[in-house]
């Protein structure tokens, strides 16, 4: 098995299970930043030192069995084409920054794609773990187990008063960034989200769109994460984040109910019109797809659409990204060519489930 297995499918195996509150929270993610005690951080270290670190992690952790027969595959950035890198970024298995350090960076990716340990990104290690639905506490526990497993063979840069030492002061302490990916179409439609984001920011949490640039959230998908990493335990950070996410879930459900009540057929029309466009269109850009998929997902959540599984919608979200389309076509495509291929892939997928 090589790294190509990570590119064949748009949906990662872990996504196929339904997690708690999966109608609103698509995934939970924990990321830990860690550094080796006696090495310079990747931002300043010479290439030879970074190559040594990369070799060490390949030697010690590649194909080493971990929990439930999971093993890690070593994926060096130097061996990926630019389209392949883009695919892994779109699947959130690696970060854009990792691909920039191409000769000295790699990632250890678990077979089920739940865990990715990025080597020589901004810090020596970035351990990230995804879970389906809303379950940050479980995700944290699992991430800590991986952290301990890695630590059996390395000495982390840690200071009693400052905690885990990281390249950037924004990560020092726990080195942890916890986040949830939420689908909030009703809060966007009722414009309530605009009022809520500043309030959430006040609590030391960050809200941002997952796709799209700046404040624009394509497909009504938002990521909520902690900003503070110092002076609060991981458990407390997560509890605060969970509290806010819980509030958002409740408000979103309430507004969904109200929309259904107040708009009735008009809401149904909006949802089914989107399904129709996705099923029959010949040209579709990323932005339009994101909006239509969001409407259809809402339709599925409200029980209006019964024959489209949520997994197919998740798959289409990733499958219709520019990197994936070009990987599929095995060549670089112009934006127009992408829009045509995108529409054709969506049609194909939706006709399969009909």
């Amino acid at each position, binding site marked *: 098995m090589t790294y190509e297995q990570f590119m064949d499918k748009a949906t990662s195996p872990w996504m196929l299970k339904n997690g708690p509150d999966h109608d609103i929270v698509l995934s939970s993610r924990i990321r830990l930043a860690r550094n080796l005690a006696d090495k310079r951080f990747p931002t300043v270290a010479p290439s030879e030192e970074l190559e040594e670190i990369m070799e060490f992690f390949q030697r010690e952790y590649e194909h080493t069995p971990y929990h439930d027969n999971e093993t890690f595959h070593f994926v060096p950035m130097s061996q990926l084409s630019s389209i392949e890198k883009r695919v892994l970024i779109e699947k959130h298995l690696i970060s854009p920054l990792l691909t920039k350090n191409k000769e000295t960076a790699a990632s250890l990716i678990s077979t089920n794609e739940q865990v990715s340990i990025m080597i020589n990104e901004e810090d020596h290690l970035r351990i990230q773990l995804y879970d389906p639905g809303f379950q940050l506490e479980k995700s944290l526990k699992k991430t800590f187990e991986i952290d301990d497993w890695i630590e059996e063979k390395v000495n982390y840069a840690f200071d009693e008063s400052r905690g885990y030492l990281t390249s950037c002061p924004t990560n020092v302490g726990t080195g942890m960034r916890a986040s949830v990916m939420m689908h909030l179409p009703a809060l966007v439609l009722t414009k309530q989200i605009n009022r809520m984001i500043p309030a959430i920011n006040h609590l030391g949490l960050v809200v941002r769109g997952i796709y799209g640039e700046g404040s624009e959230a394509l497909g009504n998908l938002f990521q909520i994460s902690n900003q*503070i990493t110092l002076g609060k335990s991981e458990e407390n950070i997560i509890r605060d984040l969970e509290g806010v996410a819980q509030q958002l879930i409740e408000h979103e459900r309430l507004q969904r109910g109200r929309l259904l009540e107040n708009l009735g057929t008009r809401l149904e029309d909006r949802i089914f019109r989107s399904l129709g466009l996705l099923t029959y269109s010949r040209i579709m850009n990323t932005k339009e797809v994101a909006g239509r998929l969001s409407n259809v997902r809402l339709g599925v959540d409200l029980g209006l659409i019964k024959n489209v599984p949520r997994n197919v919608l998740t798959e289409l979200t990733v499958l219709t990204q520019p990197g994936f389309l070009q990987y599929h076509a095995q060549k670089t495509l112009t934006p127009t060519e992408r829009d045509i291929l995108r529409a054709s892939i969506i049609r194909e997928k939706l006709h399969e489930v009909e």
Partner: protein
Amino acid sequence: MNCQKCQVRPATLHFKQVVNGKQTDLHVCEVCAKENGYMTYPEEGFSLHDLLTGLFNLDSSKIDNIHESPFQQVKELKCPTCKMTFSQFKHTGKFGCAQCYHTFSDHLDPIFSRVHSGNTRHLGKIPKRKGGKLHLKKQIADYRKRLNTLIENEAFEEAAVVRDEIKELESKVKEKKDGDEA
């Protein structure tokens, strides 16, 4: 005059637009102007990195003002391991290695405090590596010394904080013991 866009709020911004020699006037409120992209704000497109660098520099000006000339060597602080200087750190906003944290230690509290809502000390996971418990015990001993000095100087408020920190550390040692036995 009310805003031409929302018709509700008063128009506080007035634009003249000239397209193909034809002039149109636009009177809008600030909210609509922002929404319709008539205004660009300098803070937009400001990266977190820019923001951080700004914070650090703000901090350094303070340090420089306080210490004046006899303490100019503040600027010469240089990490013995990675050779990063404090001004380089302020410029990039990134540490070079773990040692930097010790080298620049005296100047980090204000930076961390700003970035982490007033927090400067870690509360949370501790590496499980061997000797972790010894580290804690050493730290407790250090804190006890500090506590005694503070009590001698009648700095009771500060002493209470240190006392709480000792308690926290002692419970951590206990947790570790329990963990070892399990």
